[in-house]
């Protein structure tokens, strides 16, 4: 099965774009069961479009306003939820305290090489 791991990180002071991907995470990204990934710019860069009864409303900022922001996503292949949770757990160990990973099964999709 394929799963998306959505990583929510607590706010940080330093410029996210200026920091390299931590080595331990970079190693995990090279695993064969990680089929794709995306690291997102900080939520200040987000623009949200909302369908309001057919009218497109545009707002500055992320859709969900919370202390944590969506920092990135991983697309992975795993035998079942336990396999996906195990990989998510490994990733989580390399993140900052307060980080959370939401594991969602992928219904269908297409992922081209980045």
């Amino acid at each position, binding site marked *: 099965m394929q799963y998306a791991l959505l990583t929510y990180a607590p706010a940080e002071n330093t410029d996210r774009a200026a920091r390299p991907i931590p080595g331990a995470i970079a190693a995990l990204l090279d695993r064969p069961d990680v089929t794709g990934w995306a690291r997102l710019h900080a939520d200040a860069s987000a623009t949200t479009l909302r369908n309001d009864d057919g009218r497109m409303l545009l707002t500055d900022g992320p859709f969900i306003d919370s202390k944590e922001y969506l920092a990135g996503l991983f697309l992975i292949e795993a*035998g*079942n*939820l*336990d396999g*996906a949770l195990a990989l998510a757990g490994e990733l989580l160990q390399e993140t900052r305290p307060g980080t959370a990973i939401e594991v*969602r*099964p992928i*219904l269908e999709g297409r992922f081209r090489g980045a």
Partner: protein
Amino acid sequence: MALDAVFRDQWGRVLANLIGILGDIELAEDATAEAFAVAAERWPRDGEPVNPIGWLITTARNRAIDQLRRRQVLAAKTRLLARDLEAMAQPPEALMDEAATIPDERLELIFTCCHPALALEAQVALTLRTLGGLSTDEIALAFLVPFETTSKRLTRAKHKIRDAGIPFAVPPDHQLPDRLAAVLAVVYLIFNQGWGGGRVDLAAEAIHLGRALADLMPDEPEVLALLALMLLHDSRKAARLRDGQIVPLDDQDRTLWDTRQIDEGRALLQRAMTRQRTGPYLVQAAIADLHLYEPRDWRQIAALYETLARQTGSPVVEMNRAIAVAEIDGPEAGLAILDRLDLDHYRYFHSTRADLLRRAGRHSEAHHAYRRALDLAQTEPEQRFLQDRLAEIAATAAMRICDSAETADRGCHRQPGE
């Protein structure tokens, strides 16, 4: 009725087997229900088959194939599954002689139902539905939850198992302790719900599940200990209420205790203790056992509660230790422990505290504590018990005032209950 007994015993096994084949709980459930319906119609007429479970599994499997054929407009994947199934479809007779080879997959099923990715209420409902064979109605009634809510909860859980890929498997060794603890917690929660109400006999359901687990995992001390714990508690069920009133353990008619359950519980406890590992259920079962002796060994009980408090860090365990300590060193010593606990939301905390306050002669504080316990009480017998206690201390307090007063105050002539 004989069929009911078969239903109770075999529902979980047949369903687990079907889920193992189909990988879809809803489809498996529908097919299993159909097979049992066919059995209910045919068995009384034609006689019970030689191998009821083989018959039920084969019939359910064939029903599932029919169901999948009817759905053939669906995706190619489903047709593939249907083709696989067709290869397996056999006349019921084929399984008749294979009783020994039918795998028991209830363990896989209970680990699926109690997967931590499901909400606890969903785990409980799903376990009762799939392994206990309870209807959605019965589950809703037992937990005083609307039918709609229970039904939605069950459907959502089944869909999550399917969509998120929650495995139908016994967890690997490194995960087993945590995952088994989750399973045992669900069973014990079902048991404790059964103690409070007595609507659907949930305690009996939990014991039934506990027995199945003890059969399937005979080398796990905590599994044996949980069953022992439930049996030792349940053995006192008949003595626990008299005319709708709660009877404290010391006042219970011991001839009403179920000695068969006590013997079975003690034998299980012995078996669990030989395994060299202590877990929270083993300690609790040992405590439950000690409570059945007269006089009670409060020092040993208090020591075991201390062990349990270390293992679990639970304030409720500390509360129980306070009761034991009060028996050894007096009510004030118990109250000193209670004062350190943050259990204001817990109804038994207030009734326990009230009882110790009453025994310490602090009647007005006891009155307030009983009132608070009464506000939180959930069943009628509990409410009646607490009301009686309130009346008792009111009477004692009134007598004390009369005793100490120089001239009798008018209020003192009132008898309680007038």
